C-alpha cells in the first residue's frame, strides 16, 4: 500500500476540486468494481459484490479531499490574497510553498525577513488578510496569465520516509483511508460492499451526507486519518492517540458518538486477532460518520483510523504499520457479516 499512499498524497485535491484524486481512484478500481457512480457532489461510489449479501448495506467511507487554499484576489502588484479551505492553523503556512490550480503553479507564503522585524512583530502571527501568496509575478497582468480567482491550491507534496517506519507527506488525512479502500476493492470480498470515496469532508462532511442518502447503509465504517498530538509537551490523555500503537478505534469525537456495539465488536476483533489498537483519549475532531449517522433514518457508524501527527499541515506523519492494521481489521469485520 506504500506506493499507493505516496501516489495519492502527491495528487492535488482540495475540497471541491477532487478531480485528480477521483480520476486516479476510478482508474484503479475500474477493473474490480461492479458499479461505479459519480454523483453531483463529486463522490465516487464503488460497489463490489462479495460472497453473500449482508442483511443491510455495508458502506466503507474515506474522503478524497484535503485542506488547502483558495485565491480570493489578485492584487495590482501581482501578489495573491487567499483564504483557507478546511481548518488550517495559519501558523503552519508561514514560510511554506503551495501549488495552485490544475497546473500546480508554485507560490510561497512568506513573512518579512527576520532582520526587518521588531521582537514585537515576531511575536505576532500575521492575520490572514496580511498574508499573500507570491508566485513571482511582477504585476496583476503577469499573475493573471497563470492563475485566476477561485483557483485552489495545496501544500507542497514532499513525500519522505522518516526514521523507523514513518512516512511524511501532505494529505495523509485522508489518502491513507483511500489507499486502504483501494486495497480492499482488489480483494475477493466476503460480502457485497459499497466503498464511498467522498468529497468535501474538510468543509463539513458534505459529500458523505449525499452518499449516505443514496446508499442508505445499515452499517458504515469510516477509514480516516485522525489527530495525534503525542508531543512531549502534551501529557497523558492530551496526546489523543499515538502513531505506532495501531489503528485508532474512537468511541466518540466532536461529531459522533460511535455505535457502542460496533465499537465493542471492532475492539474485540482486534484483541482476538493480535492487532494492537488504541482509542482517542481526548474528544476532538470529527469524521464523515457525523453526516452518515444522521442521514435518512439513521445508520450505525464506526471509524478505524490512523494516528496522524501534524494533521492539516504540509508535513503530516504516520506510522506505516498502523495502516496495515486498519486494512486487516476492516477485512476481519467484513468476514463477520
Amino acid at each position, binding site marked *: 500500500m506504500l506506493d499507493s499512499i505516496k501516489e495519492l498524497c502527491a495528487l492535488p485535491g482540495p475540497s471541491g476540486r477532487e478531480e485528480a484524486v477521483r480520476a486516479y481512484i476510478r482508474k484503479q478500481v475500474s477493473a474490480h468494481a461492479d458499479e461505479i457512480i459519480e454523483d453531483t457532489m463529486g463522490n465516487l461510489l464503488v460497489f463490489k459484490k462479495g460472497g453473500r449479501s449482508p442483511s443491510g448495506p455495508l458502506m466503507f467511507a474515506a474522503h478524497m479531499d484535503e485542506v488547502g487554499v483558495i485565491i480570493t484576489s489578485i492584487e495590482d502588484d*501581482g501578489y495573491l490574497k487567499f483564504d483557507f479551505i478546511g481548518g488550517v492553523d495559519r*501558523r503552519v503556512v508561514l*514560510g511554506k*510553498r503551495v501549488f495552485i490550480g490544475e497546473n500546480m503553479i508554485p507560490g510561497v507564503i512568506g513573512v518579512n525577513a527576520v532582520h526587518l522585524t521588531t521582537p514585537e512583530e515576531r511575536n505576532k502571527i500575521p492575520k490572514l488578510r496580511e498574508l499573500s501568496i507570491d508566485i513571482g509575478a511582477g504585476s496583476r497582468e*503577469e499573475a493573471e496569465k497563470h492563475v485566476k480567482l477561485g483557483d485552489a491550491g495545496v501544500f507542497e507534496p514532499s513525500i519522505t520516509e522518516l526514521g*523507523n517506519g514513518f512516512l511524511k507527506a501532505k494529505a495523509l488525512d485522508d489518502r491513507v483511508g483511500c489507499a486502504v479502500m483501494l486495497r480492499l476493492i482488489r480483494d475477493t470480498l466476503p460480502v457485497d460492499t459499497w466503498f464511498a470515496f467522498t468529497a468535501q469532508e474538510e468543509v463539513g462532511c458534505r459529500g458523505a451526507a449525499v452518499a449516505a442518502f443514496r446508499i442508505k447503509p445499515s452499517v458504515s465504517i469510516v477509514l480516516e486519518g485522525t489527530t495525534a*498530538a503525542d508531543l512531549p509537551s502534551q501529557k497523558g490523555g492530551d496526546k489523543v492517540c499515538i502513531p505506532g500503537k495501531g489503528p485508532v478505534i474512537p468511541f466518540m469525537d466532536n461529531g459522533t458518538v460511535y455505535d457502542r456495539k460496533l465499537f465493542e465488536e471492532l475492539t474485540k476483533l482486534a484483541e482476538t486477532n493480535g492487532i494492537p489498537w488504541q482509542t482517542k483519549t481526548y474528544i476532538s475532531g470529527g469524521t464523515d460518520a457525523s453526516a452518515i449517522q444522521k442521514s435518512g433514518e439513521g445508520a450505525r457508524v464506526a471509524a478505524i483510523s490512523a494516528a496522524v*501527527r501534524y494533521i492539516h499541515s504540509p508535513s503530516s506523519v504516520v506510522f506505516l504499520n498502523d495502516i496495515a492494521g486498519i486494512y486487516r481489521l476492516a477485512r476481519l469485520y467484513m468476514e463477520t457479516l
Partner: protein
Amino acid sequence: MELIKTISELSSLPAPSGFEDLAADRIHEMMASCMNEVWRDTMGNVIGVKRSRKAGAKKLLLDAHMDEVGIIITGNEEGFLKFQPLGSLDPRNLPGSEVVLMTDPPMSGVIACLPPHVLSAEEKEKVIQVKDLCIDAGLSDREASEQIPPGTPGVFKSGFFRLGENQFSGKAFDNRVCVAVMLDALSKLKDRELDVELYAMASSQEELGTRGATTGAFSIEPDYCVAIDVTFGKTPGSPKTGTYKLGGGPTIGIGPNINMKLYNRLVELCENNSIPYQIEVMAGQSGTNAWPIQISRGGVATAILSVPLKYMHSPIETFAVSDAQAASDILVKLLENWEYPAEQI
C-alpha cells in the same frame, strides 16, 4: 558556466554556519578551474588567488560567505529532538517545516506542531519559540540519542523552484546565490590578464558574526574588497525604504562601511554599460563581511554589492536571476577595467 545550474547545485548542499565542508569542497573544485591556487584555512574559508600580469600589483578581494542559517541538535525528549538555531531564524517559519539532519547518511525530520483540532483560538495566535519546538525524525528516544546526538547540525529541506518568469525560490540563497555570482565572474575572467592580484574567498560563519571573513582578510591583506551578499527584496508589507525590487538590479551600498571612490567606480561602470542597479544606503553596520574586513590590519577599501532576496532566512528565499547575472557582469567589468592607480583610493 550556467548561473542557474550553479545556484541550484550549491544551494542544495547542506552547509550551515560552522559546518560548511560540503559547500566548501564543491566551491574549492569550481574555483580551482579558474584560479592559480586554492586553499582552505583554519576557519574553513576557501581562498583562491589569480596572479596579476603586473609586478607589485595591488590585491583585490572578492568575498561571498558560503554558510547558510540552520539548526543544531541539543538533545531529545521522548525521541523528539530539541534544537537551537545556527544564525537567526524567525520561529514563525518553523512549525511544519521539513529539515535535513546532517548525519551520515542524512536523515529527514519535521518540526512538530499541534493539530488545530486540540487548540483554542488564543493558542493559535501564539508564536511558539524555538525552545518550545521539537523535531520529529520518526525515532524512539534511544534511536534518537544514538543516531542524532547533540551537536548534529541541520538545514531546511527545500527544493529549487522557478516562480513566475524570472524568479527562483529555495533555501540557502543567502548566500549561495552570491557565491555563484562570484564564481561566474571568476570563470568569465579566467583567460584574462588582470592588473590586480585577484583573491576570491568563500567565507565561513558569517551568520554567526562575520567570523571567517575576519581571519581570512587578515591573512590575505587585501587593498580593496568587494563583499557580495544578499539584501532585502520588496514584499507586500515590507518597509518602504531599505527594501529593493526584484528585477531592479543588484544594489550598490553607500555609507561609512563603503569606500566612496570604489562606490563611484561601480556606479560609473553600471551607467556606462547600461547595467541595472539600485543604491542601498547603509547608515552604519552593513550586516555584511565588509564590516570587519574594512578595519582589518591597516584598513581595506571596501564596497558592497548585493542581490535582492525576499523572505531571507526562510526555506522559501526568492531572488530574480537578472539581478544575479547583473551582479556578475558588474564584477567582470570592474576587474577588466581596473583603471585606478593605488594612490587614488
